[in-house]
């Protein structure tokens, strides 16, 4: 009953906000809409497609052709129900996240059981019980439904709403052991925004975990299913564009080469505005490697026992370091944070991070207005705010990981922090 009330309230809030006068402002905010996902560009792309002009010929549209035809159909046949469709998609995302976290809790409990013998006698009471973990799913649901970031994302009617739904569906499929469903949705999400490709690693690990049996066979099966479905969506898109693969330059090419320097909450825009032209390629490569490849191998090796933590961290890292991030991405990975409620006691920077999130969220729009409309501030102000927003997110991620390894240590060695009676502290060596 409680859950239904939550859905209804969250749905009504979204539906109502779309119909207020603020909608125009919200859907054009730089924090919400990027060149990649904005509603305005979607409308332009659909309009051009409707007029028989290839939307990928110009610079207006960067979404996948599949999204293009879906919205072409929707805008043609049911234009008035789009606010409803967007709200419903977001609610469905919340439901899928809830289901995912239920699955994750089961996996988590299994893991805990497997390594129960390693837990020291002293820390036995730190082992999570099923009832403790059950309630985290409720928190996941509430956080996604009432997080201002996800609400604003949905109200802005960005294509990130669809992206989040696909990711939630992929993870939900993985948590329940459906290889094909999971891989298909992940492939579609990757097709849309490229960065979700990172998630194939934890997904493969979760699927292997859930579908007991030969681990390597499961990895290969997952990878194969992913590659096949990705090629399939790429092919379907080309089929929609009359067999031409030119759209790739406007979707993946646009994400990778960052030609549009419109400010957003990420790190790329000002960095590449101020970049010296002959270093541009070097730094584009460096930043994209940082976002796509750098962390995946070490983190996988370090957290191979915890694919769910890996999902959370990779989602968050790719959000911080992607070329066109928006608050919708932030809202999505934030929904996974309550899953790590048991780590909160080990986190040291909760307060700082929370304050930084609140302050930057308020300051960002303010300095944007001062820069663009009042002309009394300049680009550095907004850059400073986005920089601290990124820093806050990074602190959140690293703090979470440190908390995890601290808990891991405590579980193994007990919570005493003394060596031969002398006070000692935990350090990395």
């Amino acid at each position: 009953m409680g859950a239904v009330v939550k859905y209804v309230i969250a749905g009504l809030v979204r539906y109502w906000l779309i119909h207020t006068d603020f909608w125009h402002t919200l859907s054009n905010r730089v924090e919400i809409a990027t060149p990649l996902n904005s509603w305005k560009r979607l409308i332009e792309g659909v309009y051009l497609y409707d007029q028989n002009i290839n939307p990928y010929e110009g610079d207006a549209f960067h979404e996948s052709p599949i999204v293009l035809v879906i919205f072409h159909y929707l805008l043609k046949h049911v234009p008035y129900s789009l606010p409803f469709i967007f709200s419903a998609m977001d609610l469905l995302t919340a439901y899928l996240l809830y289901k995912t976290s239920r699955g994750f809790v089961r996996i988590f409990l299994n893991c805990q059981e497997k390594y129960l013998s390693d837990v020291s006698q002293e820390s036995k009471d730190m082992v999570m019980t099923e009832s403790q973990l059950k309630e985290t799913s409720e928190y996941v649901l509430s956080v996604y439904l009432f997080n201002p970031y996800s609400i604003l994302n949905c109200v802005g009617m960005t294509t990130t709403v669809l992206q989040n739904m696909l990711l939630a569906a992929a993870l939900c499929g993985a948590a329940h052991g459906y290889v094909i469903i999971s891989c298909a949705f992940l492939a579609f999400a990757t097709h849309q925004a490229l960065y979700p490709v990172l998630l194939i690693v934890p997904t493969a690990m979760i699927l292997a975990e859930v579908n007991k049996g030969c681990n390597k066979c499961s990895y290969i099966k997952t990878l194969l299913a992913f590659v096949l479905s990705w090629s399939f969506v790429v092919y379907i898109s080309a089929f929609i564009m009359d067999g031409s693969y030119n759209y790739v330059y406007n979707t993946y090419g646009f994400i990778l080469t960052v030609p549009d320097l419109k400010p957003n909450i990420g790190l790329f825009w000002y960095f590449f505005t101020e970049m010296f032209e002959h270093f541009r390629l070097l730094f584009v490569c460096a930043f994209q490697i940082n976002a796509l490849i750098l962390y995946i191998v070490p983190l996988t090796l370090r957290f191979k026992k915890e694919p769910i933590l890996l999902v959370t961290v990779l989602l968050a890292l790719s959000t911080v370091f992607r070329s066109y991030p928006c608050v919708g991405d932030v809202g999505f990975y934030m929904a996974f944070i309550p899953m790590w409620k048991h780590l909160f006691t080990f986190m040291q920077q909760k307060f700082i991070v929370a304050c930084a999130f609140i302050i930057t969220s308020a300051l960002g729009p303010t300095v944007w207005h001062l820069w663009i409309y009042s002309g009394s501030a300049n680009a550095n102000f907004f850059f400073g705010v986005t920089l601290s927003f990124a820093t806050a997110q990074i602190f959140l991620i690293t703090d979470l990981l440190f908390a995890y390894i601290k808990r891991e240590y405590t579980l193994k060695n007990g919570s005493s922090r003394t060596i031969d009676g002398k006070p000692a502290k935990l350090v990395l060596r």
Partner: protein
Amino acid sequence: MFNSKNFLFFIAVFIETIFNANGDLFNEELFIKPLPPAHLYTYFQFTTLVNDNLSSEHTYLAPRSLVEVLTRFQVDELHFTLTEGQWRHNHWGYPVLDAAPGAELYAWFSSDVENVDTQWKKLSSTLAGLFCASLNFIEDFNTITPQMALQPTGAIPQNPNITSQLRYASLPREIVCTENLTPWKKLLPCESSRGLSALLNSRMIHNTNYHSIGVHTRKVCSSSDCSVVSLEIKQTVALVYDSKIIRTTDWSFTKLFGQGLPGGCPLASSSKVYVDITTNDTQPFLLSPEPEKVLLSQRGGSETKLALYTIKPENKMTTIGAKYISKKDLVLMKLPPLYFNRYVLGYGKEFGGIVTELTNTFWSSIDVVVLQNAPWWLPIQLSSLRINGEASSEMVLARHYSPGRSRQKPYHLELLLRLPPKSTTKITIDFEFVFLKWQEYPPDANHGFYVGSAIITANLPTARNYTSLPGTASLFESSINASKPWYPAVFRTNGVMVSLPTPDFSMPYNVICLACTVVALAFGPLHNICTKELVLKVVGSSVTLKQKIINLFKKKKE
């Protein structure tokens, strides 16, 4: 015995035969039209007709440097103008040839040219050298291929995809100066020593409200069935004087150009000065000296009176001038059948819109082609195109849109509209401000960015305020009594300016360092977490500063 008089005569006949045989014809004309209440339009036209078979090896009266360029790049028709100031169609009527503010260049290449784009780039760079203008900044990102708005005026073989040979570019930021006028004058057979071009004194002509210099070349038929074509090179100067600047409404050559006319160019077949004295009825003035002839021209229902002076090469220094007899009240100009206005909407530096207003004052509908040419840094959204606030208007008969691409291609929109009689039509389109890289901003980035003017092509049903020559004609006299069913015209609206958001230009090192620091903030801890393990370490007693210094020395000794 040889009579010296006979000998001279013989020489004269000989020279005459040479010129006739080679057939280059050069005509110079000056058209002066008062634009009440306070302006004066002067238009110079120097026309060279090359009857000879075209070869760049040798030319007679045509400038070799230009002919060489035309043959080398196989240009069929070329229009190049450099303009400073804004022509006000609703106050001044129509000019003989309209031009966009800044530099404007468009050309049709011969149908043999396959790679038009490379030829176009070569042509523009060569002309940049020839006219000392920044035409070398013409690149793919500011070149368009108009589909409907521009049609060749010369004799070009019928070709269904003639537009594929056309390229158009305008540089609205270009500043016109003496350095452009001097090479332009060098192309004339008499340069600036004799003839009407002697009046073009850069000290005076850059002191006007509007000035535009141009070179227009085209092919014209030299036989009745048009099997033989010859080249026509037309050099033009249009000036609009402001009586406030010359401090009097009375005008004379000395006042306008700083000197009198030292006689016509000896190489010219004719040197003529036309003064439009139609306004004499309402604002009477006296011409001095008396015109040779007064021509009455009936054209498309409007009547024009032209005073004609023929200038002979052997003429002494002459000065033509006008003195107003009485200062009457303000006279209202009759509005031209079609006029337009263009401006930018919105505030802030995030979103905006461009409005083009077209007013049809005529009693029947007029078909016009409107070409909007937005640079890549001003992305317009076709879905936001509104005509009088309507998304789909019945006025649009045809539309062509080619979307732009950042740093590669401009946005190009052409509309064929049927303007209803006695109406104002408002074309609105939204754009988004683009954030450029810091090195892409021009010096003085906060000055603003110029957006080129829109082209408006119309077939006017009436010749009211119309001064252009008929399409096939070369000389001014052919516009007298030249009534046609319609009068083709190509106009340019005023340009607009937008102010793009700027980054802080002094910050590159700081920004690179700060952004990399944030990346390092993630990389460092993640690297630690992945490569190190947690261990317990005894917390030692705190070391005093003295102890630290001693430790430092100890280490060094070791």
